[in-house]
Every structure is written in C-alpha cells, then in structure tokens.
C-alpha cells in the first residue's frame, strides 16, 4: 500500500476500556501501524492481532462490535474523538488531518450500558420498536397479490426513513436521552412516521400515537437538533419529529372530541 506523505506511518490510539459492566473504566494507549486506507475498525483488528500497549505491556484485545465494515449494519458505533460515529467509515487520514499528531480517542457510547470495553447494550432501541408496533400487519405469507400502490413521491419520503440502521448515534447525541429515563428519541419518531405513512401501517397509528404521547414520548423532545447532525444516513430526523409532533396535536384533539 502506498502511503502518501500526509498519512503518518503509525497512529496513537487512546482507548477507554472497561472489563465488566460493573467495573471502573480506564484508559489504555496503543500505537499501531497505519496506511492511507486505514479506518478505526482496521486498527482495532490489528490490535487484536498484536495486543500490546504503547508501553509494551501485553493486554487482552479491546472488545468491540463490528460486522459489515461499510456503514450499513450499525454495529461498530462508538465515540471517536468525542463524536459518535461508525468506526468502519472513520478514516484515519481524515480525522488525523483535523488533529495532526494527536492521539485518537475511542470510547464506548455513553447512553447505553457498557458490556465490555467498546461493546454496549443497545437492546433498549429494539424494545422500543416493539412498543410502537414497528411492522406492517399482514394476512400471512401466502400469495395474496401485491401491496397497495405507492407513488414515487411517497416512496422518496419513506425510503430514506427506512434506511435507519438502529445504530444509536441520534440517541448518543441527544441531551434528553439518558441511561435512566424513558425518552424514546429520534430513532423511534422517525420509524413511527414511516409506519404511519404506509397505507396498511396506518391501522396501528392510534396505538403508536398513544405510546409517543405517553411517558418518554414526543413532549420530552427538547428540540436540540443534535440528532440530525450526527445521523450517518442523513435521515431527516427533525422533520420526522415535526411530523410526529403535529400528528400528536391532531390525535389529542380527535381524542378530546371522542374521535
């Protein structure tokens, strides 16, 4: 691999480690070889192959999640240089250019319980998908003809919403979302909007709105708009929040007048 002059041959990584969910986190420093196309997952992989700290101590390799390595599965989400992002698409040459010579800091997401090192438990996001009935109810898998026609204009609104990979970036960046509150966050508002739009998904709209107007629902959104800035898929999250907010108003009026 040709290494252009602006890419350093090695790079320093400061990794926040934590052995178990209940133990104290601690920093560990590594210095690893780096090429023009290196990214954070490729460097974590090379630490696994040679897990020795910058001080020369042999350690257990840092635990981390990764799978697709092309920013479509959401696994490797972590906080790198203070910003939540996917480790696989975080190119070293790019972030080094922002802070030349400085070590890269790598931490687990802070809004979810740590399992070990960079691995966190994001099951809360999937549980919330159950609460808002994030599915289209169908009459089974038999051959029953096509679904409803969808205009290209509708599809072009729905498709970007459906690209949410449940990575948790929007929740990590959100000041309202904490480890111990019930706030569902932008991910859920956006997915709910998707199902509310679909002709058959609309059947569960009222049940969905009940959840979104309850504890941890839309009224808890502080409109900080951090979510949309960190979303790796450029999902129009604040627009979704607006749509759900208006739907909530309509739903309360309807409910007040007994529908």
């Amino acid at each position, binding site marked *: 691999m040709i290494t252009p002059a602006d890419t350093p041959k090695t790079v320093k990584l400061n990794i926040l480690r934590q052995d178990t969910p209940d133990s104290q986190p601690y920093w560990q420093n590594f210095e690893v070889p780096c090429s023009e196309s*290196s990214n954070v997952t490729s460097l974590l992989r090379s630490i*696994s192959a040679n897990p020795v700290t910058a001080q020369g101590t042999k350690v*257990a390799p840092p635990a981390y999640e990764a799978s697709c390595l092309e920013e479509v*599965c959401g696994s490797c989400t972590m906080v790198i240089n203070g910003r939540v992002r996917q480790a696989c698409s975080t190119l070293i040459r790019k972030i080094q250019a922002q802070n030349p010579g400085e070590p890269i800091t790598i931490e687990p997401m802070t809004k979810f319980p740590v399992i*070990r090192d960079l691995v966190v438990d994001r099951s809360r996001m999937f549980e919330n998908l159950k609460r808002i009935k994030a599915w289209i109810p169908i009459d089974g898998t038999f051959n029953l003809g096509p*679904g409803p026609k*969808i205009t*290209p204009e509708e599809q072009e609104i729905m498709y970007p919403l*459906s690209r949410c990979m*449940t990575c948790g970036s929007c929740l990590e960046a959100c000041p309202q979302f904490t480890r111990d509150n019930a706030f569902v966050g932008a991910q859920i508002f956006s997915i709910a909007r998707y199902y509310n739009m679909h002709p058959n998904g609309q059947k569960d709209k009222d049940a969905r709105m009940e959840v979104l107007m309850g504890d941890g629902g839309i009224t808890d959104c502080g409109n900080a708009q951090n979510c949309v800035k960190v979303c790796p898929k450029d999902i129009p999250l604040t627009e979704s929040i607006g749509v759900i907010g208006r739907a909530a108003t309509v739903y309360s009026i309807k409910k007040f007048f007994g529908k």
Partner: protein
Amino acid sequence: MSHKRVIVVGGGLAGLSTSMKLAEEGVAVDLFSLVPVKRSHSVCAQGGINACNDVARQQGYSEWEHFDETVFGGDFLANQPPVLEMARMAPSIIDMLDRMGVPFSRTPEGNRDLRLFGGSLYKRTFYAGATTGQQLLYALDEQVRHHEVQGHITKYEFWEFLAPVMDPEGRCVGIVAQDMRTMQIRSFRADAVVMATGGNGLLFGQSTMSIICTGSGTARCYQIGAKLGNPEFVQVHPTAIPGEDKCRLMSESARGEGGRLWVPKKRNDTRHPNDIPEAERDYFLERLYPKYKNIVPRDIATREIFYICEQGYGIGGGQMVYLDLTEKATGIPYETLKRKLGGILEIYKKFRGVDPLLEPMKIYPAVHYSMGGLWVDFARDDKTGGLKKADPRNQMTNITGLYAAGEADYQYHGANRLGANSLLSCIFTGLFMAPGIRKFIESRPPVADQSQQLYDTAVEKQKAAQTRLLNSKGSDNPYMLHRELGRAMSDNVTIIRCNSKLRQTLELIESLKDRFQNNLGLPDSGLWNNQSLAFARACWDMMLLSEAITMAALARDESRGSHFKIPDELMERHDLPLDQRSLPRDDEHWLKTTLVSYVDGKAVLSYEPVDVSLVAPRARNYGKVTAPAAPEGTKEPLAAAH
C-alpha cells in the same frame, strides 16, 4: 404442536423467512444469531431481487426463462427442479414483500420499478434504491418482531452456535450454544434445526462479506458428519473497492443502470480518467460481448477484468479498472443515477473521497458469495418438474432433522450465481421448506423425551474444547493465523486456479492446522465477552473449510462457472488469451456435484450426478466475439477474444 420446537441458527433473510413461515405454521421457533438479526449480512445486498413480472412477460419472458437463465448462468451444475420451483415462486415473493411494506422503487404511476441485471436481457430485477438487501431484511425483521411480541418466536441474539446435538440414531435433536457475553455454554432441545448461517468469505481474508461470515455454522455441522456440496465454487464479484480490511461491493446495478467498465487503450496512461477522450478508452466488455455488454455474468466479467489487467492495461499498469457512471459515459443525468444508486454512491464517496458520478470509480474483483455449502436434499415432483410441496426432504442435509437454507446451502446457483438471485434463494428456501419441516417434526417422537444426559455430554464436550483453547499458551495469535490463511486462499483459490498452487495451499493449510493445534496463543483467557476465543474457534473452522474448498478445486480438472483451471505449464503463457490457456468444461467427466465429508479429521471427496432433467446442458459463452477488434491507437495485442 406447541410442545415441539424448531431452532433456526442465523437471522439473515433465510433465517428470518424460515422463522416467520414456521411461526405461521404454528411451530414454536428459537432463533439464534451472533448479532442482532437486523445487523445480519443480508443488509449488505444492494442491487435487487429477481422475478418474472408483467412487463417482462409481455416481452416474451417467463418463469421458465428465469429458470433457464439461472441454470445456464450456473453452468449447469445446479439441480434443476429446485431452481424451477424458485423461479415459479419468485413473483409471489415480490408481492409478499410489497405487502410487508418494503419501499420498492416506483415508476411514475406507482408500480414497482425494474432494472436490468447480469445474465438477462430482460428487466426482471425489483429494487429499493441500491440498498435492497437492507430493505428486505428490515421488512422480515419487523415481521419476526411481530411474531416475537405474540410469543411465537424467541430470539437469542449474541448467542453463538457451537455444535448440533445428535441422538444415538443420528438424528439432530438440538444444539449447544454460547452466550457471547456471559460465556455460558448450554444446550437447547429442538425437534429440527435449520442452519441459515450464510457464506464463508472471511476465509479469503478480504471479501465483500461481513466479518461475521466465517462459515463456522456450516463447518460445525460438517465436523459432525454433514456433507458439503460444491464447496470449490466461490463467486468473485467483478466490481468492488479494494481495501485492506474489506473489499466494499459496488453493486452490479451500477452496470444494470448504465455504468460502463473501461481501461485506457494506452498502457500506463497517467492522465486523469476524465481527461481521456472517448476514442482512447477500451470499453472491453462491450467490445467482447456486444449482446450482453456490461451485464455479462459475474464469473465472466471478473475474468475479463483479470485478463485485461494481466495484459498491462489496468489503471496505471496495476490491478484496477474504471467503472464509469459519469453522465459523459452513460448519457444519464446526475440526479437520475443519484436517486437510483444513492446507497452505493455514498459508500464510494465515504471510503474513497470521490463522487463517482463526477469521476469514474476504480474497482477490482473480490470474493463475494459461496455457491457451495451444506448439501441438501430435494423432493422432485414429476408432474410439475419442480418440487413436492411440504415434503420433509426439501432442504434437509444428510443428517436427519438438520436443515440448511440460504447461502449456507449449495442448491440453487450451480457454478456461478446470477446477480439478484441470492435474496430470492434466501427467502424462497425459508418459505418453501417450513411446511416440510412441520411435517417432519409431526412424524417424529418429540425431543422432549430424549435423555438429558445426551445434552449434558454435548455441553461437556464443548466446555472441554473451550478450556483447551483458553489454556493455549503458544505464540501463534489466531488473527495472525487467519491472515496467512486468507492470503493463500485469495492468491491461489479464487479467479484462476492451477494444481501446483492448489497443492501448495493444501500444504500450507496443513501447517496452519498444526500450528493451531500445537502453538496457539490466545491473547485473552477471560470468561467475559471473550472475542479472541470466538475468533480462534472460527479460525479452525475456516481452515477446515479452506481445505475442503481447495481439495475439491484440485480434483475438478475442468473449468466451469467460477472454477477456472489452467494447467501448470500454461500459467505463465500470458501471450495466450485466458480461455486458450484453461481446461474446457468437461460434461462427460465433471457434470457432477462434489460432496465432501469429514472423516477421521480429513476431507473425503465423492460425487453424485446433477439432475438435468429439464434442460440439456449447452455451451455457454454469451455471444463473445471471436475476432479481436484491435483497439485504435495501439498495435499491441489486447484482451483477445475467443
């Protein structure tokens, strides 16, 4: 029924469709996955899913054509009845996905749009932008979540499958699995087990596959007696972004939508691609295949790219060619392609820093798909030419009660898979096999009656194996062993193969196995979320699968689909075109399925005939022109055509 359960291992499209259909059949399902199922490798599929459709039908296409293209594309190595059944069911699968709310791309009138894909002259590929696999996976994930809420399906995410549990009669009656966080190892009873664990790209080091695609699920069944079918058939996709950690796929849909492959006509042309005029570009696939042009099947496009680079025409003399989506080359406006291909354009931009609609992409082939996998049975229906519905034999491995589906099986793609047929085969196998599985478990005594000792013994065996690994104090790190394995497999067992290199590779695998068994050093000996332990186990599995792949490739002295063999003495004859160097397809001796069994720690080969009862094998060259058209501006011989 409620006391009988089925275990599904793997939560990609095949595992999810199996689980969903079983739940609908009233069977309780336990679904195991290494990752939250929503993060499975199906998420990476980009281009689309094939099915005969109304538009193509009115142009002369049919389910039969889809079937014929698939077996022809697979160079006649696939058993034909299962492929016919799949092609017949495809249109209804699209409708089902549509009802589930998959945001398929639409025509102005609101119909589902279609695109062109490799190996067909008809538009028969449905798609959702360039992230079709993701959209299909999410739709099935949601249906499964709905079943989960209703109590039909129980998910075990972050659990790793370690081994099947066998009863004394040789029936699979459950599995041993490990919680990857707590490292608890325990057994689970099941009246049938389905392996939907995907392909094995990681054993080649870099591939387009996710790094969880180790093939371990398959390898662990192989080690207890399940046979592999056609493991030597490995698809190398023509267009990927080369990378040190992974090769990132650039979907065939880029070419289906008008993208063109080219190299400069002049060797070592150092100009920026946008500065190279039209007349000085060699659109080599269009020159060689005037009928199919850039959408010849993958094995063929891959070899042409390999050859043109071997001849020194690759970009800068290296191993890369241009995949051009610029308006100048395609005549298609920027915004149109951005709308249709956004997902893959983003990937290129993120990883290469260049907008591929403004500047041609630099790509090279990469390992992409395992046509081979667990051997599975089928029940032919002589009346329809397809399969008998609800027959327990469909998709069952040679182990009673152990089934396989999706990329983990070997059944549908023969020697080369056509683009956009994998999403189809995954969903088809899941849906089609489930009623047969229900019938199977109804006909057998419940595993609830099996002795607990059977399960305890299986757990103890895995615990003992784990203890051995945790205590290994040698100097070979499993990640380093994997690197050596991947390099050899990539260098010697991919696009072109020759027997001397295959033999060398087998020797290397033997030495890696020896080092694994005698000099492994695990960098982590803890019992909490120990990823090194899991990787070491997978590393051993990858060595065994590599051995099976390489042995089967060594034995098969012919060229067929993705398996392309050159006799040792012709390997360096770069003056000859590739197809004058290679062994021809040899139906007389090699129109047969490779079976590999694991016997006393060794791979043993045997063969069985291919069911070609529906269409007779014919020559496969996609109308390649026989006379090389000499490119302008050079007198040197170019990628010759034969």
